[in-house]
């Protein structure tokens, strides 16, 4: 199916015609601009982060990371990610399935709605929860009467994180599933598989790489989210501070070394995500291209 296409694709890229090949100076300028941009805006800050983190030596670095408040922040961040990422997978797969495989009214609206967290400032996302669950909020009185605490506590942070991250998996899967259509599922059903078997043996393997991409990106965002979480967290040290919030607090206290030490963990997470993504692409490039069908 995709095999000859991959070859022709590669061929096409190797032997570019003279007409679309830029002159040497133009090539040089384009490359310099690209690399300069990447260097100044991406690489340099990254170096600064690690440089500052180790500015006071390795012992200061480890001390900053073993501080109880820092450890609690790391713990909370991992917990939030551990809750929101699986929920996101469930939501993302269901939403993508519904949009790609069924026809129903309001489908376009749903597709747009999924993009909402991308188009709305994270601060607003946080404020929405304050308006909903806050003491003066819509559900505030009821929640208080039943002794349920959402705002300025872990549930609020989880909710805000889910809100800002929920497009990631769905957005990755929708175009993929739409492109693949229903053919494989119909084939599985005609061979006697039930719906669950068709999903497990056929649909899921067909989208696994897209799903993994989505999960990686979703995880990175869940751990790194600042704005929305900042509004609903209440910044209680050792209780409702996630890593990004903790970085801000430390920095505002002029504890730059500790702030950057925690920041270096977040930067490290970004790097690991990137490396994983690249490794996946290198190792399974052909297969990913094949399941994507182009």
């Amino acid at each position, binding site marked *: *199916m995709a095999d000859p296409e991959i070859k022709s694709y590669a061929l096409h890229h190797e032997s570019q015609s003279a007409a679309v090949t830029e002159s040497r100076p133009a090539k040089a300028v384009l490359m310099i601009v690209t690399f300069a941009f990447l260097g100044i805006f991406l690489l340099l800050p990254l170096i600064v982060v690690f440089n500052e983190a180790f500015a006071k030596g390795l012992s200061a670095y480890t001390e900053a990371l073993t501080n109880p408040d820092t450890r609690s922040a790391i713990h909370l961040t991992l917990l939030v990610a551990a809750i929101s990422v699986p929920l996101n997978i469930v939501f993302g797969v269901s939403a993508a399935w519904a949009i790609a495989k069924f026809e129903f009214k309001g489908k376009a609206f749903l597709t747009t709605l999924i993009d909402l967290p991308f188009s709305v400032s994270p601060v607003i996302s946080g404020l929405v929860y304050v308006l909903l669950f806050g003491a003066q909020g819509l559900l505030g009185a009821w929640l208080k009467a039943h002794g349920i605490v959402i705002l300025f506590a872990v549930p609020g942070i989880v909710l805000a994180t889910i809100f800002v991250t929920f497009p990631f998996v769905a957005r990755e899967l929708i175009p993929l599933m739409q492109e693949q259509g229903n053919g494989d599922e*119909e084939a599985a059903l005609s061979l006697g598989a039930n719906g669950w078997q068709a999903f497990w043996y056929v649909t899921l393997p*067909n989208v696994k790489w897209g799903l993994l991409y989505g999960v990686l990106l979703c995880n990175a965002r869940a751990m790194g989210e600042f704005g929305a979480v900042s509004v609903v967290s209440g910044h209680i040290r050792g209780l409702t501070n996630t890593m990004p919030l903790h970085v801000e607090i430390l920095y505002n206290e002029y504890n730059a070394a500790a702030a950057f030490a925690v920041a270096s963990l977040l930067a490290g997470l970004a790097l690991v995500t990137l490396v994983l993504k690249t490794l996946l692409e290198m190792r399974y490039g052909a297969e990913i291209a094949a399941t994507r069908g182009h």
Partner: protein
Amino acid sequence: MEVRVANVRKEFERFPALHDVSLDIKSGELIALLGPSGSGKTTLLRLIAGLERPTKGKIFFGEEDASQKSIQERNVGFVFQHYALFRHMTVADNIGFGLKVRHGASRPSAQEIRRRASELLDLVQLSGLEKRYPAQLSGGQRQRVALARAMAIEPAVLLLDEPFGALDAQVRRELRRWLRDIHDATGHTTVFVTHDQEEALELADRVVVMSQGSIEQVGTADEIYDTPNSPFVYGFIGESSALPVKVEDGQVWIADRPIGLSAPQAPRGEATLFFRPHDVDLVDECNGCIAGTVAASRRVAGTRRVELEIGGERQRVEIELPVDHPAAQKTRVAFRPRRWKLFPAA
């Protein structure tokens, strides 16, 4: 397994795709659903499979009403137009899939599934390709794997949607013969959809010609070709020429001249005369014939197609002559159809 389609109607969002279609398929028969795109042939196939539910009417498998049964319960082998092979599974896993997803006692052991898969690969002449992935196969090979996969579940009926549509002409002809052999060897009741009349007429025991959501004619290749029962079938199957004529006094007339064809049964009035371009007699003396001026002459493989302008209204009609026939050099040609049919003008 006998399949009976009884007065089936299918609508997609109010748009009728099939109107009141009935069809009896005998056990062990190889049937072609033939028609242009939009004729409803694929819809009928999918209804038989259970991939769609009829809006009205019933479908029987043997004596049993299968209309409300799911595709899993119907136990049909369906070969999809683009094969729909599972790309992340090897050829052997693809073929064994239908056995693997069975429940409880009906599921064979992994070893038995492997054995069945390689048996079927032998049948479709692809032994040794068990470990390949679909992407590593040619189009013709994928087609064979798809068929083997469908046959692995020992289906009651084998359904194929445009089985050769995506293949080039050479492979197509080969696979056609091969499918016929497999059918004769296994005896499955088989229905396939095609828009290629040559394929349908050559391969099928009976051909179902469809147009605009209805069945136009059902018959053997000979019946369909020699005695088409509607203008559509005449035009769709093989080459045909049509001329507007008039029926009066049991004779066929063009303008004010009888053309030497008597039609005592035909109703009086306007009609259309259909005949095959190659099924004509040339005549020298025209007392009762169709005569026309040669407008164009084309060489088509072993014959020559001559386009004639007939009568004052300059109706164009095509006849076929042997390449070396002297008439091809003339400017006026007279002929009489050997076999023909009249349909009242719509």
